[in-house]
């Protein structure tokens, strides 16, 4: 199991180097090495240290956050179709972000508003699913899906009321775009903390995947564990959405791709998701910057275009 994590770490490093070298201006390997040693040209140094590295790190963190959040949601809801957005978190974040854009706020306020929206969505679903009756995974899922549909309607309403010159920015945000990230550090920090919190719980999650009764019979305190996962996954998703808008598919596809290859032991799947999600988004963002350079594509389009065929291939050849 350590071997696969090591292999993923190496791939992550290679992907990051690619992201630093490739772009509207290509930096050859020798020149990149010089820049890393602090001897490169002014232009290349600025490109690498101030533009490409922060962006690559932000992409990595966002991908990692989404993939880990997806893996957690799938176990929490005992539903392989769950993803970080299934409970309407991205909808809440999107409404927050779009309202901020509509009223012409700056980037910082857009991020803050998105985060506030995501947390509001979390609390809303949490409160509604709690209700008066018994609390079950399927009840949480239904509440989340219906609330998500509600957010969808609000998003459409906002788009319909928005003057057309503001629409492209909003659509890019909705599709996910790493260029919104100003600094990668909060996202990286949240990702590292989340892994530190979740790893000691990983075997508990393996047992929880067998159902809450079975988990309780094997010594898991189910309710506290489920709330921990829910709040943690929400925080991860909110951080990711705040960093780079709502990027689809990463949270659904990455954990499943890994499960098809590595099995369903969360002690491997969770750290592997962080790495593989990061890799996917770094590569996708590099492509998004270069395919029609100097124009940029929204990275969400690329993750879907890369992720869907890869996933279908793995699913097809799995037993």
């Amino acid at each position, binding site marked *: 199991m350590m071997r696969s994590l090591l292999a993923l770490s190496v791939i992550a490093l290679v992907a990051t180097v690619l992201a630093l070298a490739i772009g509207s201006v290509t930096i050859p390997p020798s020149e990149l090495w010089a820049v890393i040693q602090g001897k490169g040209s002014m232009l290349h140094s600025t490109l690498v240290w101030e533009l490409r590295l922060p962006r690559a790190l932000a992409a990595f963190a966002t991908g990692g956050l989404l993939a880990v959040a997806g893996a957690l949601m799938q176990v929490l809801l*005992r539903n392989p179709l769950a993803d970080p957005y299934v409970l309407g978190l991205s909808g809440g974040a999107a409404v927050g972000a779009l309202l901020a854009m509509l009223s012409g706020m700056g980037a910082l306020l857009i991020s803050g508003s998105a985060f506030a929206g995501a947390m509001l969505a979390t609390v809303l679903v949490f409160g509604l699913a709690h209700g008066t009756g018994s609390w079950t995974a399927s009840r949480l899922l239904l509440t989340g899906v219906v609330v998500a549909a509600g957010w969808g309607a609000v998003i459409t309403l906002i788009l319909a009321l928005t003057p057309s010159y503001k629409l492209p920015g909003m659509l890019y945000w909705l599709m996910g775009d790493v260029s919104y990230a100003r600094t990668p550090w909060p996202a990286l920090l949240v990702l590292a903390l989340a892994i530190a919190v979740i790893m000691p719980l990983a075997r508990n999650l393996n*047992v929880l*995947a067998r159902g809450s*009764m079975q988990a309780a019979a094997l010594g*898991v305190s189910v309710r506290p564990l489920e709330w921990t996962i829910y709040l943690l996954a929400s925080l991860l998703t909110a951080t990711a959405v705040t960093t780079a808008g709502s990027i689809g598919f990463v949270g659904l596809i990455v954990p499943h791709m890994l499960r098809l290859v590595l*099995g369903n032991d969360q002690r491997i799947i969770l750290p592997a998701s962080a790495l593989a999600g990061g890799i996917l988004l770094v590569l996708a963002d590099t492509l998004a910057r270069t395919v029609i350079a100097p124009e940029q594509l929204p990275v969400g389009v690329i993750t879907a275009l890369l992720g869907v065929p890869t996933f279908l291939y793995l699913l097809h050849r799995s037993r």
Partner: protein
Amino acid sequence: MSILQTRDLIINVPSRADGFPLSICIESGQVWGVLGPNGAGKTTLLHTLAGLLPARSGQVFLNNQALIELKRRAIARQLGLVFQERQDSFPATVLETALIGRHPWLSPWQSEQATDLQRAQQALATMDVDHLSERLLSTLSGGERQRVAIATLMTQDPNIWLLDEPTNHLDLHHQVKVMSLLRDQATLNKTVFMCLHDLNLAARWCSHILLLYTNGDACWGEAKTMLQPSALEQLYSQKLITVEVDGAPVFVPVCAGQ
């Protein structure tokens, strides 16, 4: 050695009167069988004894400690359960499934040791499913899955074994195998408490019987005093013929038309 006791326990079967409060003492070395018609609350009783469902009133004690005051992990080291229904949303192999039985014994950072693996493999071998170790659970037959579930409980190795219809889906040979395994565990000072539908398995292998009626009434005691044809006929609203085979009573239902 473990003792499971109930004091004035009323299980919470929805929209049913309280019935007769259960004050039972289930001791090590005993094999208990719970008999009763569908919906009498056998599974509810089992889950209440395991602390998975709250009682309507009364209490359950594990080694003289109130169950509700114990942590789940401490309970899981003493008491294990085979469920009637199982959930498998995610693919898992047979060996992985048996290994989760070690969960209550491992600390958060600890991974399964060689001895854990050995226990799991031994349990699978006892249940004749060791050749399926690497197969996915979802590709197994109902009986094979039932045997894997019992092997998981063996791997957990608690002192108290609660089983919800352990012979479900099993062929005759494996029914006998499981029942003898349970009796052997009891002779090793474990405590066995199970719901059963087969009167004859109960008559053959249980030392104690609890009869649970649809209205919440209950009576319990040693098997030979409890397995009276008249009581069983009333329990199931079904006429029975009793014959003796191999030293144990055998109950055969009478067809309505005859």
